[in-house]
Structure formats: C-alpha cells, structure tokens
C-alpha cells in the first residue's frame, strides 16, 4: 500500500545524511566527551561543532546553546529555571492559551506552587492581542512565553513585536520554536528573544535530543542538576550521536530554508485549495497568511475527526487531529477551543503537516482519497442533510 506521511509536526524521519553523521558515534567513537583520554577527545570537538551548527541556524553564539533531551525538557527548563532564578524579582508569567502542553502543564504545575500565570486569549484566527499582552505585564512579571509557531494550526506569532514589548518592560521572553526552527527563518537577535526551544525530531534529527537557547546574562537554575556538562547548566552525559545529528540537521535545514519554505507552502496550498474545492462545508483553522508553510488544519463539518483519520490511515495516509475523544471537553483541542471554534467543527478537524519529502503526487493522492471518505462519514452522520451547507 502507498504510505503517505503527512504528520511531520508530530515527528519526522531521520534524514539519511543526519543518520550517516551520527553512526560513528555509537560504537567506534563512543567516548564520553567529558573524558580527557583519546576516547573522550575524539568526540568532544564534535559536540562543539554541533553547538556551532545549531547556533548558526538561529544566529546566536555557541556558548548560548544548551543541549537537552527534547523540546519538552527545554520548555520546562526555561520556565522552571526562570521562576527559580528570578524568584526575588517576581512570580508572574504571561503565556497564551494555545501553547504546547509542555508549556501549559508546566505553568499549571507552577500555579499550584504559588506562581501567577496569565493565559492570553486568541482571536478566531488564533492570533494574540498585543495590547492585552502589554497590559498584562506587572512589576512582578518575570517571563513572557509565546510560541513561535503553533503545532496544531501552524499560526505564526509576531515574535519581533512581542520581543520589543518584552525589552521595553525588561521582561525575559521565551519562545517555543520547536515547530518553527528549520522551517521558517528564526533569528534570535532580530526577534529579541532571551530563551528559545528547539527539538531535534521535528527537523529530521533523531528523537531524544533538543536544545535551548539561553541569551547571555539570563541565568537559569538547572532543571537537571549534576556534573559540569554544558557549563553546569545541564547535568548528564552528553547524547553524542543525538547532538551531532541535531547539529547536522540544523546545518542542512539552514542551507535549504528558502527552498523548503517555498516548496512546502506550494504543496500545502495545493492541498488546501483542492480540499476546499472538492468538499463542501469545510473550514480552515488558523490564520490563512500567518502560518507555518507546511501546516494545514481543516475541519470537515458533520463528522468526527477520528473516523476520518482512521479511514485515511487505512488508505496509507498518516495525518493527525488535535481532537481526541478521550481528552474531554467535547474532544476538542485546547487550541481550537481557545480560538472559539464551534465544538462540533472542532471535533471534525484534521491536521496535515507536510515535510521535506512530501511530493505533488502525495497531495494528489490525498485529494483523490479524502472526499469520498468524508462523504461516506457524512452519510452516516445525524447532523448532515444532503442539501445543507448553511451550517457554516
């Protein structure tokens, strides 16, 4: 069966060049980079090379990169580490209602410990009111956390403007850029962010490695205390193959960024337009312009997302849904809920996320397979009247 993977926001396959770069570091170059002997020396320079490669992609200095095990660790480290390091200064965090669970769950856990958190609302396109953001800042605000690009809808936030606001009020600014780095230009100087989260497996590096950018002069209390690794910022023996892979992936992504963005956006738009032309009563979720190039979140009225996903899966198409009948609250994703999407439409949403390997043929296959599935499920739906269309 044809296998078409359109869930690249969930994870990506490790790129051949990246795996090739990693392979020697499992068995032949296996040393601990903290060791001074031949086995350690053989690898430590590769860690520093990877640090430069990551730094190069986001325009920071290598010393500002701390290697982590994933995007979730990066977000936890940035937020909890700031709360602990700045506890004399204040205890208020401003974030958005549409962050990834790694940010939201962390904030909720901190609330139980007395930290105050403002969750900014978004409008129906998924965008923030920047005045509201600025007004939320108080004397006690220690951190603003706004993601670069949303994982479910692809919505891109005005990071530069938020960076200016944060600067103006001298508040630290964290951006979870797990979905943005390697897909759109990310320049920490231009953006004025102080902390920025990266995860390897979203950009064809392996699972189990990530990085946190920590601007010089913004000390964090470690999340993982231990040895002297990462200049005392993150204990634990370095994941050498993972780090080397992340470096290579960043280098490759940087070199192809322009091309990638354009190519993927064209394919995404082809998918979007094709679906909208072939299927009535669909709704795009997320701002049509301010969006990651490869993400399409779309609702098919009258049916539930899971059924659609399962049928797509049976035809070899892997996509995903923020909705899950298990998550309560009418099974709608917290992101769509925050955007005020009608609960029924929220449940009918599907996310297609394209990758570097996605081809025109893949898109055309989806365009051929999907409409009859929707029709079949609609024919089964008590809410669907063949004549309808006014519901939207």
């Amino acid at each position: 069966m044809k296998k078409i993977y359109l869930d690249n926001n969930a994870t990506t396959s490790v790129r051949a060049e990246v795996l090739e770069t990693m392979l020697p570091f499992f068995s032949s170059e296996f040393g601990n980079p903290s060791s001074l002997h031949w086995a350690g020396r053989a690898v430590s320079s590769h860690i520093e090379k990877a640090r430069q490669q990551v730094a190069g992609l986001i325009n920071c200095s290598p010393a500002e990169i701390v290697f982590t095990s994933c995007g979730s660790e990066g977000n936890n480290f940035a937020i909890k580490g700031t709360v602990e390091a700045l506890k004399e200064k204040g205890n208020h965090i401003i974030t958005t209602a549409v962050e990834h669970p790694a940010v939201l769950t962390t904030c909720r856990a901190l609330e139980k410990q007395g930290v105050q958190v403002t969750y900014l609302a978004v409008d129906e396109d998924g965008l923030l009111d920047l005045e509201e953001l600025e007004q939320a800042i108080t004397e006690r605000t220690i951190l603003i956390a706004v993601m670069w690009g949303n994982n479910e809808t692809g919505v891109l936030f005005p990071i530069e403007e938020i960076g200016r606001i944060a600067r103006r009020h001298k508040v630290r600014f964290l951006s979870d850029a797990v979905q943005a780095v390697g897909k759109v230009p990310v320049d920490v100087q231009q953006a004025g962010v102080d902390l920025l989260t990266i995860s390897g497996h979203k950009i064809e590096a392996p699972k189990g490695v990530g990085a946190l950018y920590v601007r010089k002069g913004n000390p964090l209390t470690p999340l993982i205390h231990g040895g002297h690794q990462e200049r005392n910022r993150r204990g634990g023996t370095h994941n050498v193959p993972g780090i080397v892979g992340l470096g290579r992936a960043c280098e490759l992504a940087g070199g192809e960024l322009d091309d990638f963005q354009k190519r993927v956006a064209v394919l995404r738009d082809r998918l979007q337009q094709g679906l909208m032309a072939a299927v009535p009563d669909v709704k795009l979720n997320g701002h049509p312009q301010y969006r990651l190039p490869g993400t399409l979140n779309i609702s098919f009225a009258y049916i539930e997302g899971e059924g659609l996903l399962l049928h797509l899966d049976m035809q070899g198409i892997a996509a995903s849904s923020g909705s899950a009948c298990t998550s309560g609250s009418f099974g709608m994703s917290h992101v769509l809920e925050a955007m005020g999407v009608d609960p029924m439409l929220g449940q009918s949403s599907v996310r297609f996320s394209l990758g570097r390997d996605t081809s025109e043929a893949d898109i055309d296959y989806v365009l051929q397979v999907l409409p009859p599935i929707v029709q079949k499920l609609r024919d089964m739906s008590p809410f669907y009247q063949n004549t309808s269309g006014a519901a939207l």
Partner: protein
Amino acid sequence: MYSDKVMDHFSNPRNVGEMEVPDAIGEFGSSHCGDTIKVFLKIEDDIIKDIRFKTFGCAAAIASSSMMTEMVRGKTLQEALDLTNEAVAQALDGLPPEKMHCSCLAADGLHKAINDYLQEKK
C-alpha cells in the same frame, strides 16, 4: 488500539441510514464528548423488524452503533431494553478503557427510542 471487530464495524457499518416512516426514533447525545446517535426502528408485535442508525462520533461510537443494530434486530423490545452497553462493547471484543463511554451511546440511543415508543403507545 481497536480490535478487529471494531475496525470491521467501523469500516463497514451495518444498517446505516434513516427510515421514511419509522415506528420509533431515538436521538441521544453523550454529554461526555458530544457524540450523537439517531436510531430508527420498525416494530411489529413488540419485535424489532428493522433498524437503522446515524452516528456522529469516533470509531468506537460508530462500531458500537453498528454492532448494537445487529444485536437487536429481530429481538423483542424487552430483550432490546435488556441490552447493556457492556454487552455491546463485549461483542466488539472490548474497547480501549478511555473509549468505553462511547459504547454507551448505542444502547442509550436504542433505549431512548423504545421508551419513547412505549410512552406514546400508553
């Protein structure tokens, strides 16, 4: 995640549709997740002669609906009222724990239709 039986009933649901002149209709929506079923019955001599359904919901909800219709067609109203959600789930070789509530829909929708019918007849 789902058993083969669930996948079979989900991919090829039996008795989907509406009826022009049903003897009974029941609509039931889960307050838990918004899933909704509509059940249409043709009843003769307290026996379910024909049954159709429409369901909005996840695969578990659709499969439960389909399985339920197979289980009660030809049965008496009392037998149908005795059908439990657990029995439907069991007939599907089980459902993932977090999906158990989706099977509620099917029996509940059926019971609603029958109870309304019995109410009206009184």
